[in-house]
């Protein structure tokens, strides 16, 4: 199964850089909210990389 990272959502701006769109949120709750919205918009799955970073991945 190949996946593409469509977006990165984080509360820790220092640790993130790269090709996918990055959404920086002030709090954990805001991060979850944005991830939820993006999941519904993109029809892709949200995964947790670390406690302060989520990625939206399209599988297949």
């Amino acid at each position, binding site marked *: 199964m190949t996946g593409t990272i469509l977006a990165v959502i984080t509360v820790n701006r220092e640790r993130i850089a790269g090709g996918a769109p990055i959404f920086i949120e002030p709090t954990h709750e805001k991060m979850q909210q944005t991830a939820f919205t993006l999941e519904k918009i993109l029809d892709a799955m*949200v*995964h*947790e990389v670390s406690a302060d970073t*989520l990625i939206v991945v399209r599988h297949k």
Partner: protein
Amino acid sequence: MLKELFANEFVVPLTIGFVFGIMCRIHLLRTDYRQYPTYPHGKIIHVSLGVIASALGALAVPALLKENYTAVTFLTVAAQQFRDVRNMERTTLTEIDKQELVPRGGPYIEGIAMVFEGRNYMVIFTSLIATTATILFNWWGGMIAGVIALVIARKLRSGKTLSLIADTSPAEVRVDGKDLYVGDIYIMNVGLEDAQNIIREHGIGFILTPKDANAKVTIAHPGQRQAILHDVATQLGIYTDTGEPSLTPLVKRDLQSGRLGVFLLPQEKDVERGKAIIDSVPILESVFRMPQKTKLVKKEL
């Protein structure tokens, strides 16, 4: 007119063979949870093909007895015809599968298509037997032979099920932060708290333990695993929608022991029925492996 018809020595054998052939097809045609063939059009197609098949089967022996040897070659035409049945089923089911929430998967479709072809040959066999027996022993002989053929067809109707090769036991679905487990088997990473809560509430899990080395290889096949997911989804419903990839039922394998962790999101949270459904999932013919039949690897596995 009628008198002339009955003067023909082969009318009774042909009729008996023909009728038993059609009975055989109707007997083998049932719509169950697989929702296939659909009523009424799917059924009409298959009954008509069954009529053709039984006519062909009934004709073979009388044609030989009339020393019309070339007539037997039409059996090869029949074989070609029924291979097309398989193609037709495969195409239809593959098209339907694209729109399923939980697809059947290629090997399952192949299995169903193969069954449709095979059943037409069963019909030819039944009518052939019934006609031959009528010619040899009078009408009652044909009846007895026809009934025996029907019984054989019934026996061959259903294949093996998963309960023969694996033990299913309910297991706890554990959402440990982002990690989702069924029992001790890791399933996937769920990042969204909303999805985690839904899984906690609606998820059920099972662990399938293979009974021997053959079973281990068979249930590891992704096609077989997809068949499990599809069967449960059609019978218990599914708590998901299009565009909800976080809520996907999934089967993962424990590499060490070959056990399967089955994670399900049924509409109806019924563990007992879930177990019964998994137990009766057919073992796909194209997936069934028997490494133990090889002398070389007998010991190692």
